[in-house]
C-alpha cells in the first residue's frame, strides 16, 4: 500500500497563492476559507542578515490523526494509503475535529454545514493525476508522491535531502507534509507555525469525561439489578403464581 506525502520546497516558493486559487477552484471552497494557503513568517534577524519564509499550510494526513479519534460519527477516517478522508454523507458538522487538528487544517463549510479539508486531491489521485496545488505551482516547489516507492522523487527528497516535518516533542502525530529549505528558514517556520495540542470543545470533553462514564454506569447498574432479579426468578423455578 502506498503512503502519500507532499514535499514543499520553501526555497522555491514565491508566495504567489496560485496553489490556493487552484485548490479553491478545484474543490469549490467557500470564500474566506481555504484547504491550503500560503502564509509568511515574520521577518527575523538584523539587516543585512534578515530571514523570512513563506509557509504553505494544508492537511498533513497524519500517521496518528487526532481528528479521527475526535470524530464521533466516523465521517473522518484514515485510508490504507494514509490519506485522511471526510465522508460528507456521514459528517454531522459538530466541529470536534476542527478543534482536534493541531494544524488548524479543517473548517466547517458554511454552505454545506459540514467539515472540509485538504485530502491530497483524492479524486485526482484516484485517476492517476497529481493534486491541483502541485500541478499549478508556478515555481515547481511542490512534489507529490508515494513514500513507500524507494526510487521515487518524494522518497529521495524526504530521506535523501532531509526534508523536515512540522512536529514538536509535545505534538508528534506523524504529519506527511514535508518542507525543504535552509536550516535557518525551517527553524523560523517551525517557531512561527508550531502545531498546537489537540483539544476538544467543551461538549466533546464533557461527553468523553462525564456523560459517557455516567451513562455506562447507569445502564450497567440497571442491567446488573435486573440480572440479579432474573437469576432469583430462575432459582425459584417456574411455578403457577396466584394470578
Amino acid at each position: 500500500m502506498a503512503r502519500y506525502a507532499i514535499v514543499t520546497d520553501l526555497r522555491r516558493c514565491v508566495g504567489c497563492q496560485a496553489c490556493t486559487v487552484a485548490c479553491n477552484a478545484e474543490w469549490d471552497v467557500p470564500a474566506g476559507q481555504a484547504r491550503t494557503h500560503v502564509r509568511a513568517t515574520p521577518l527575523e534577524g538584523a539587516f543585512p542578515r534578515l530571514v523570512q519564509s513563506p509557509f504553505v499550510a494544508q492537511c498533513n494526513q497524519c500517521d496518528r490523526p487526532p481528528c479521527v479519534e475526535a470524530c464521533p460519527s466516523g465521517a473522518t477516517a484514515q485510508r490504507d494509503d494514509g490519506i485522511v478522508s471526510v465522508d460528507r454523507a456521514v459528517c454531522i458538522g459538530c466541529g470536534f475535529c476542527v478543534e482536534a487538528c493541531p494544524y488548524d487544517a479543517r473548517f466547517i463549510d458554511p454552505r454545506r454545514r459540514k467539515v472540509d479539508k485538504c485530502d491530497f486531491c483524492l479524486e485526482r489521485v484516484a485517476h492517476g493525476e497529481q493534486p491541483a496545488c502541485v500541478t499549478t505551482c508556478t515555481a515547481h516547489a511542490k512534489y507529490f508522491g508515494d513514500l513507500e516507492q524507494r526510487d521515487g522523487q518524494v522518497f529521495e527528497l524526504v530521506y535523501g535531502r532531509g526534508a523536515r516535518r512540522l512536529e514538536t516533542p509535545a505534538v508528534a502525530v506523524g504529519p506527511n507534509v514535508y518542507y525543504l529549505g535552509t536550516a535557518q528558514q525551517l527553524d523560523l517556520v517551525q517557531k512561527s507555525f508550531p502545531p498546537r495540542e489537540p483539544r476538544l470543545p467543551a461538549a466533546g470533553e464533557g461527553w468523553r469525561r462525564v456523560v459517557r462514564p455516567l451513562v455506562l454506569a447507569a445502564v450497567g447498574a440497571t442491567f446488573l439489578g435486573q440480572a440479579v432479579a432474573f437469576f432469583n426468578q430462575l432459582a425459584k423455578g417456574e411455578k403457577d403464581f396466584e394470578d
Partner: protein
Amino acid sequence: MRTDALPLEPVPLSVEQAESMLQSHLKKHQVAIVLLHWFNASVWGLELLTGLALITSPWFRFAPAWLVEMVEGLFGSRANLIRFHVNLGLLWIFVFLVYGVFGFRTFLAREVLQKEIGLDRDDWRWLIVRTLRILGRSQEPLPPQGVYNAGQKLFALAVYSLLPVIMLTGLVMAFQLFGPAAVGWAVVLHFAAVGLVVAGLLIHVYMGAVFPEEKPAFFSMITGEVNEHYAYRHHFKWWREVKQAELEWAERQGAEGRPAETPSSPGPGPTSPA
C-alpha cells in the same frame, strides 16, 4: 348491587370469585396505543442498533468495535447507516406528531397526563415495597395502584420528558441546525437522553416480558385486555373505578325503568369476604 358495596381496599377472594374474575376481561389499551407501542418498540430496537454503530470514536462510543463494524457491514457503508438512522428517526417523529396532534384529546390529555405520570402517596410506598420484594427482603402486600403502577409512571415520566430532547437534538444533528457548537451539544444530549431511557428500558422490558407476576401486562399490549383478577390484584384502584362506573350505569338503567343488567362479575363486597 350498590356502588358503596365495592370494597375500599383489596380483600381476599374466594376460589369461585377468583375463577370467575379470571374469565372476565377489562379493556386496558386501545388499539391505537397497542399499535403505537409496537411501532415505537421496533423503532427503538433499530435506532439503538444503528445509533450504537454510528459512534466509532473510542472516546465516545458505547458499543464494542466489533458491533460497530458488524452493523456497518450489514448496511454496506456508514453513509447508508446514518441515512437509515436519520430517516427512521424522522418517521418516528412524524408518527408521534400525528399522535400528539390528533390523539391529544383522546389519549394525551385523558390518559397520559391524568393517569400515567402523577404519583400519589400509594405510588411512592409501592416503589419501596416493590423493590424490597424483588430483592427478596419483604413479603408486605403492595399498596393498591391505579391503571398504571408507580414503576410504569416513573418510566413514563422519564420517557415523556426525554423524548422531546431526543427528537430535537436528532433534528439539530440531521440538518446541522444552529451551527457547529449547537450540533456538538446536540450529540452529547442525544447520547445522554437515550442512555437514561435505555437504563429504564432494561427494567421496563424485564418487568413487562420476563417477570412472572406481570405476565398479563405483557399480553395486554397485544390483546389490549387484562383479566379482571389481574386488575384486581395489581391495579385495584383502577379495577374499583371500572366497577363503580359499571354499577352506576346499571343503576341509571334501573332508574329509567329498564331491567338493570348485572355487571359480568360483581366484585366481592365487604360483607361477603371469602
